[in-house]
């Protein structure tokens, strides 16, 4: 197609001339498709031009030229000049003059890549992570404060509360989460009961499994499981929504209108979550007990009436109250973490993904931590 086939890399042929001169004859297509080969040819030509005063580059036989070819030509000229030679371009077709001229103006100051000392870099990573953790704490505290202010304003002027928005979010994080929460807690109750019966049967202690199931589900597992689900399902959604709004400057737009994004976007979401999580915990705990009861009935051979009366003896209202008491606090933690992460999203899509992941991981971690603190607290007050 352009007659440049033949010897590999013959797009630039070198011939030494008398009197310390080198002549390079270029031919064929000097274009992007051949750029890799061409770069090698140019490198070889430069090698042949070492210790030579004057180099003529004859471009007369070049059929096509684009920025890649023009740049390689320009690079050759510059490299020859850098080793003390002088290069002349001859025979360049007039139609290529503008392009070669434009490329010739390229001012290559390749940005200095900063080299880091590996030890310093490693320390910097640790330092940055520590700082980030501290900043996380600060942001959490700041968001809690901003929320408190927002809610205080709402108490002072209740009509400013975005009720419609809250109901909408309540529908999303509460009502629509019900089926999956019921299913999962039901299965969880069933599994606890089955394992308990299987292992305690050898001691004839199946009755105590009812106690274990009741206490465990109402106090700990019910609320924890619900919170883990909510963090993964709704916390991540909050972060992604707020993050996308941040990226598209919607949050900034609210601010410039003199409106508080915390009051408008975050408060209704967190209010919805704080209502939804206790309700979900209640329903989830019941579902887990029902799951356990079904297993007792079908697998353990215990009639439902007996299971129920045993359950009534085993649990007190306290167990139930403690589980429910923890729920709104955990909802608050999930909501605050989700909002902090969402509002911390910076320009890129990657940052949105990272923040969403961080939101779920941190929320689950904090929920479990909080549960531990509650356990210590209730042990201390003897409940």
């Amino acid at each position, binding site marked *: 197609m352009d007659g440049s086939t033949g010897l590999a890399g013959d797009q630039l042929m070198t011939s030494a001339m008398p009197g310390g001169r080198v002549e390079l004859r270029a031919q064929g297509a000097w274009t992007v498709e051949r750029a890799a080969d061409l*770069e090698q040819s140019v490198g070889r030509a430069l090698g042949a031009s070492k210790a030579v005063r004057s180099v003529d580059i004859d471009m007369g036989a070049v059929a096509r030229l*684009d*920025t890649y070819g023009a*740049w390689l030509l320009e690079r050759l000229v510059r490299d020859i000049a850098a080793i003390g030679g002088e290069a002349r371009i001859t025979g360049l077709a007039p*139609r290529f003059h*503008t392009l070669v001229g434009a490329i010739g103006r390229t*001012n290559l100051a*390749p940005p200095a890549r900063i080299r880091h000392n590996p030890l310093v870099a490693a320390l910097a990573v640790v330092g940055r992570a520590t700082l980030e953790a501290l900043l996380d704490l600060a942001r959490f505290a700041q968001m809690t404060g901003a929320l408190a202010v927002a809610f205080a304003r709402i108490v002072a002027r209740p009509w400013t509360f975005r009720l419609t928005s809250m109901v909408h979010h309540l529908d999303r994080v509460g009502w629509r989460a019900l089926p999956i929460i019921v299913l999962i807690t039901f299965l969880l109750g069933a599994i606890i009961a089955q394992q308990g019966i299987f292992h305690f049967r050898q001691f004839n202690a199946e009755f105590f499994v009812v106690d274990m199931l009741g206490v465990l589900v109402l106090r700990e597992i019910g609320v924890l499981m619900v919170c883990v689900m909510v963090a993964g399902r709704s916390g991540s959604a909050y972060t992604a929504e707020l993050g996308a709004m941040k990226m598209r400057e919607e949050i900034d737009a609210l601010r410039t209108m003199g409106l508080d994004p915390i009051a408008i976007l975050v408060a209704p979401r967190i209010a919805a979550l704080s209502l939804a999580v206790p309700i979900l915990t209640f329903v989830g705990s019941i579902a887990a007990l029902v799951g356990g009861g079904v297993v007792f009935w079908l697998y353990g051979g215990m009639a439902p009436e007996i299971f129920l009366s045993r359950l009534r003896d085993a649990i007190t209202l306290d167990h139930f109250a403690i589980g429910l008491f923890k729920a709104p606090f955990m909802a608050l933690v999930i909501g605050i973490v989700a909002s902090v992460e969402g509002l911390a999203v910076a*320009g890129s899509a990657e940052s949105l993904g990272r923040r969403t992941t961080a939101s779920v991981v941190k929320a689950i971690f904090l929920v479990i931590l909080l549960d531990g603190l509650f356990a210590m607290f209730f042990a201390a007050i003897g409940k």
Partner: protein
Amino acid sequence: MSEGAGEAIIHVRDLTVGFGAVDVIDGLSLDVRRGEVLGLVGGSGAGKSVLMRTIIGLLRQRRGKIEVFGCDVGGMRAGERRAIERRWGVLFQHGALFSALSVRQNVQFPMREYLNLSRRLRDEIAIAKLEMVGLDADVCEKFPAQLSGGMIKRVALARALALDPEIVFLDEPTSGLDPIGAADFDELIRTLSRTLGLTVYMVTHDLDSLHAVCDRIAVLAAGQVIEDGPISTMLASDHPWIRSYFHGRRSRAANNGRI
């Protein structure tokens, strides 16, 4: 450059594109000739972006034929598509830079995908392209979120030009730029099309661009090209929309001294 000038590099016949019950493009025919700068104008929502996205294969047509470089864009296999796609570059309306990559990585992205170049050459070409679109080498390590609107457009243009395409598609390249920035950008497109022998397909709202850059203008309305020709044809046209567009109050200043 001069080779095959005048030949239709994009050839559209009886094209119909629609969503649901509406045909946004309805029986449209259009030719773009090699080496020319074609400006496509039309009201907001007339389907300019839809037409462009259909030509580059992002949307599917309901009826009609689209040929680019003489190949039917609709009926191509994946391998052929790739071969065609590296011969055109696209500047999207909002730049569409990859937000997770630096400017240098954005410009080098098509090179990495299609070419097997040394790192040195990739870096040098990226800088050369950035300088061609009027940016300094020190934007290289910045990320899109750190750039201004005009810089984003320029980097996106550098990326569109990364593989030395034969055609560039520009969707409202000067929208969102200040008048001076827009004029610079027009100048840039003109220079690049001359220097690189580019064919330019430009969707625009900008009367100044039409005057300064375009060899030919096509007007899109009611899903069809209702008029097509140089600016003098537009100024002479009787069609009410074209009259109000080219003779309206906003257009006076742009027309001034050029007729």
